[in-house]
């Protein structure tokens, strides 16, 4: 699949934004974070910014963004519609939560309830996003449980890493310690999920073949010798994207190293190197590294996913 910048940005950014929201809501409910206004502005603001930027980017990249509002109507059947709806509904409790925190200076009680509801809806939104991909049968690399697991883990994971850095910036060592531990756990889980995912897509038996796509399989190997068009078309640009194995391996290494291993080591180090600027620097490094790593991961998520339509254009099996 074509790794479009907009979708990569959207899924990683809003994933991180929702992740932050989830943990802010949970920490507030647990009373583990003091409703400091400036902290609130920065954390909640950043989370909102990431979510909105992501949504905006994906909206603006619609063919007809001015009609985006129509995307809500089919929540009964469409995961994309549900995602939109969940995202919008999530804004309500999250807004209340943020208002209470930043303006009213409280994040406990009713505010915490709103925060928790917001967290749940954020998770739900992530789930919807995941299901958009996971529900697509023609793309076996997406049509599986690990895709959902990936979105559900990586969003909260990147959110936690980012929060850690911000807490350190604000010298909030206690919540920082919690998010550090959360991050470590999620980074490890995330890595396992991705490894399991990559293992699956590499070893899974193909769902469809050139033979089933044409129905000519009984005649032997099916190869395309004449194309309907001599130049690229929409289908090939959008779905015929193909990445060389070597290139993928390289990106995978980057994704693993920067997305998971390095942030893990950095955050692990903050537990031991507690003095001065070190935790901040390390957690900032972890965040940056994680962002780059996840962009690579997401790029691969698209680039490695092969669509059944390519079977008509020379691919043997997907």
């Amino acid at each position, binding site marked *: 699949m074509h790794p479009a910048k907009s979708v990569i940005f959207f899924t990683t950014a809003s994933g991180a934004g929702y992740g932050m929201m989830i943990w802010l809501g949970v920490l507030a409910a647990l009373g583990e974070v003091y409703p400091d206004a400036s902290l609130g502005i920065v954390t909640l603001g950043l989370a909102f910014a990431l979510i909105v930027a992501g949504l905006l980017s994906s909206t603006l990249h619609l063919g007809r963004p001015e009609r985006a509002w129509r995307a809500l109507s089919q929540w009964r059947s469409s995961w994309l519609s549900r995602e939109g709806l969940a995202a919008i509904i999530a804004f309500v409790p999250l807004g209340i939560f943020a208002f209470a925190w930043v303006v009213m200076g409280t994040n406990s009680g009713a505010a915490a309830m709103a925060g928790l509801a917001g967290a749940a809806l954020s998770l739900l939104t992530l789930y919807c996003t995941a299901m958009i991909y996971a529900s697509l049968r023609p793309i076996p690399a997406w049509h599986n449980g690990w895709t959902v697991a990936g979105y559900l883990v990586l969003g909260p994971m990147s959110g936690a890493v980012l929060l850690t850095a911000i807490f350190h910036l604000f010298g909030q060592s206690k919540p920082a310690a919690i998010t550090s531990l959360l991050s470590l756990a999620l980074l490890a889980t995330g890595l396992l999920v991705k490894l399991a995912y990559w293992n699956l897509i590499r070893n899974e038996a193909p769902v469809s073949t050139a033979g089933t796509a044409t129905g000519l399989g009984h005649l032997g190997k099916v190869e395309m010798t004449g194309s309907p068009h*001599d130049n690229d078309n929409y289908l090939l640009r959008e779905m015929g*994207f193909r990445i060389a194995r070597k290139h993928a391996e390289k990106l995978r290494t980057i994704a693993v190293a920067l997305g998971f291993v390095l942030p893990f080591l950095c955050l692990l180090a903050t537990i031991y190197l507690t003095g001065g600027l070190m935790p901040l620097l390390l957690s900032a490094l972890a965040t940056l590294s994680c962002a780059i790593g996840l962009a690579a991961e997401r790029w691969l998520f698209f680039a490695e996913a092969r669509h059944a339509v390519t079977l008509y254009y*020379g691919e043997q099996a997907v």
Partner: protein
Amino acid sequence: MGINPFETVREDVGLSPQVGDEVKTSTCYMCACRCGIKVHLKNGAIRYIEGNPDHPVNKGVLCAKGSAGIMHQKAPAKLTKPLLRVGERGSGEFREIEWDEALDLATQWLGEVRQRDPGKLAFFTGRDQSQSLTGWWASQFGTHNFAAHGGFCSVNMAAGGLYTLGGAFWEFGEPDWERTLYHMMFGVADDHDSNPIKLGLGNLKTRQGTKFVSVNPVRTGYSAIADEWIGIRPGTDGLFVFAIIHELLRAEKIDWSSLARYSNAPWLVIREPGASDDGLFLRASDGGPLAWCLEQGKAVHANAVHLKPAFAGERTVNGRTVVPSFQLLAERYLGAEFSPDAVAETTGIPAEVTRRIAAELAETAFEKEIVVEEPWVDAWGRHHEKFVGRPVSFHAMRGISAHSNGFHTCRAIHILQALLGSVDCPGGWRYKAPFPKPIPPGIKAAWPKAEAGLPLDGPPLGFPRSPEDLIVDQHGDPLRIDKAFSWEHPLALHGMMHMVLHNAANHDPYRIDVLFMFMANMAWNSSMNIPETLGYFTKKREDGEYVIPKIIYSDAFYSETVPYCDLILPDTTYLERWDCISMLDRPISSAHGGGDAIRQPVLPLDRDVRPFQTVLLDIGARLGLPGMTNEDGSPKFPGGYEDYIVNHERAPGVGPLSGWRGEDGSKSGVGAVNPDQLTRYIENGCFWHEELPLSAQFMKFANREYLQYAKKMAWLGHADPITFQLYNEDLQKFRLAAQGHGDIQPPEAQRTRIETYFDPLPIWYQPFLERDEGGEEFPVHALSQRPMHMYHSWGSQNAWLRQITSANKLHMHRDLAAKHDLEDDDWVWIENGRGRVKAQVRLVTGVNPSVVWTWNAIGKRKGAWGLDKDSPEFEKGFLLNHIITEKLLPEKGVKEYSNSDPVTGQAAWYDLRVRLRKCSQEEAGETWPVFEAIDKRFEGKDGPLEFGKDLQGGDTGGREPLQEFVGQRSANHSWVEGIRDGRGNRVSDET
């Protein structure tokens, strides 16, 4: 639509939009198949073109080209005004001029020639369908140097058929698609009968118990749907057919009674080697041929009603040693060298396959006889209760004809049909009117006049029957610029357009003053040798003048040839003009009856162009040519071509159109001029078709009812039966001359050639180029094929068709590729002694492993056809024409012959042999040769094409397209490197 975001909006689809405000019928000309079309117009623009369901040719279907007619009309390459060259030839520097000036100039140039020596005008036209006009114009002008494109197209087919059965494949005959049970097709990619063949194959294959065999080195198109594909080695079909005949003879699976009645198989041939009439038929005093009747025990008139002829046995009749011609045929093809085993290696066809095919043909012909219960009367007055059909049929085209041995191969296929008794019978191959014709047709080419201001006494082209009919001087040297009808190519019935530029530029045999061309891309894909041909166009004398002093050309588009000509007469498109698809030319008849058609202007002209035919008549009138001028000097057809179509009479009562003749339109075929004729055609969908009664639809060569009807229609001069000439005496006459008999003999140097190739029975020989340049050094055959959706060079300017194909690849067998270390999309040099061409590779398995092939005429020259300078047609499209040649290496002591069939002058495109060499990394990426751009004025239109946007609107129940929005456009796609076309996804793991 509300603005409730949760509402599910229901679409109100307009189910019955007004398609257009007017429907006009006409005839398609996106190729030469001449299908009937219905053009829907909306607000004066074309909305939709569909096939006319009532039309006899296409019965409502329309091919890809025809469907893309809209984009033909929209092509930016359309010429808009007459052009006069101001720069050097080839530079593309022109001045736009007015028609008055253009016509004055043309008249002046042509007038000068005509007053000096009309033969110094060479008038050659392309694949147009107005040869009856252009040929007539040439003879009125007085030049014998006229021909159309047939010489490089498929004259082998025409000649092979007309000298054997009095009708030909090409588009002049057709299998009985509804009845045939076994169809064998040789060397066809799309052909002129494009839609009828597809309709026919679809019909054949969806009937039970049928089989379709395709003999073709390449398995695409029709061969792909064949029940059996025979991937023959190019140029060897003759041997394959001989081997089939060998098998049939051995098994006596021959339709003896058909041969006895309808062919010259029993005619007695004089067998007295050395005699001046050796090999000629023994004739009675009245000139009629004789046959030996076994019942009567004597030689009788071969045409007698009662005859039990001998098919073998040397006898002495009237003191001469004679044998039935069938014996000569049998002796030849029973020869061991033509057994399936003997030919297997050369043809690449295993002997058991040949044997099986022969057995299947015999089984179908003789054991699956079909009958049409319809009484008929033969030419001798004998009544028959029914038509008996031998349901095997054949079709062949350029895969046979475009080889230098094609004439004989084509004859062999026709002879095979006759041996099986499947000519014009139910389920067999059938003639389309006005065929069958006498063998050969009686028309003779007029003798050159070369006298100022005089017309020729007849048509410039005809059918030679003996050396007397050649157009040569007292030394036996050619008198035509293309050397047609000379000893070099005696039966060059269609002329040899492919030699004109070469000969004119080399003053061989003489110089010409004006070259006048119409609708032929001679500076590109119609040329056998582009690099040198461009040199012929631009060759100069010492004084700086061009060797070919003046070139007038009519094209409708900015083709590669336009910039090489001096005066351009821009033509209309097929949707803008009157045309006539005439019985005198290439009509739309079917086996069921005769037919012709017209084109009517469907769209008004929006440019300063004129229909060429009208311009030609105008020039004719300005020159005062006899048929085009009244006594008082005024033009005879002031109304242009449509005036001519209606009012011209070739012979009394015979004009371009056969339908609705007679003052009241009640006559067909022959009748007085009907001023309302065109209206009647339009009322009938722009065609006329007269179905023959069933009793006249078969066995037309000997069907009294048909023959009398054909005579009435002026298709035949008399109603005598037409006898298949398996053994061709006319060819023998040339051979006798070569052996030293008769007054007119070939020049010394050409005796052997004539003696060898004018065999009265088909022979096989290695194609010339393969003989000269084949072997180990150039071991690979290189072919081209027509893509079904493209028509020669016209297709590339078509915004829709070029999306399908805008570059061509060199297809080869995986094994051949492996030998050269080639993989898909690699670049390769295609080389021979003359040069090389660079192409990209596509591996396949459906091809003979000694063959490479590509699509024809996809490669284009930069600057042509209104395309952007970096179009794939220029950078990835290539032509094999760069390394084909129009001339062979000079033989020892003899001149350099044309690379053509020695009998007919048919250009031998498919004899090409090459070797392959993989390109280095640096060489890959772009084709070669790439010539300098020929024009800078025409540039591809920018921006997307939104045809149809304005056709869809309120009344269609649809939406008005909305333009203002922010959103993702194509631009967004271009940022990612590494997008591959996905075809085969050939990103190697290394990258």
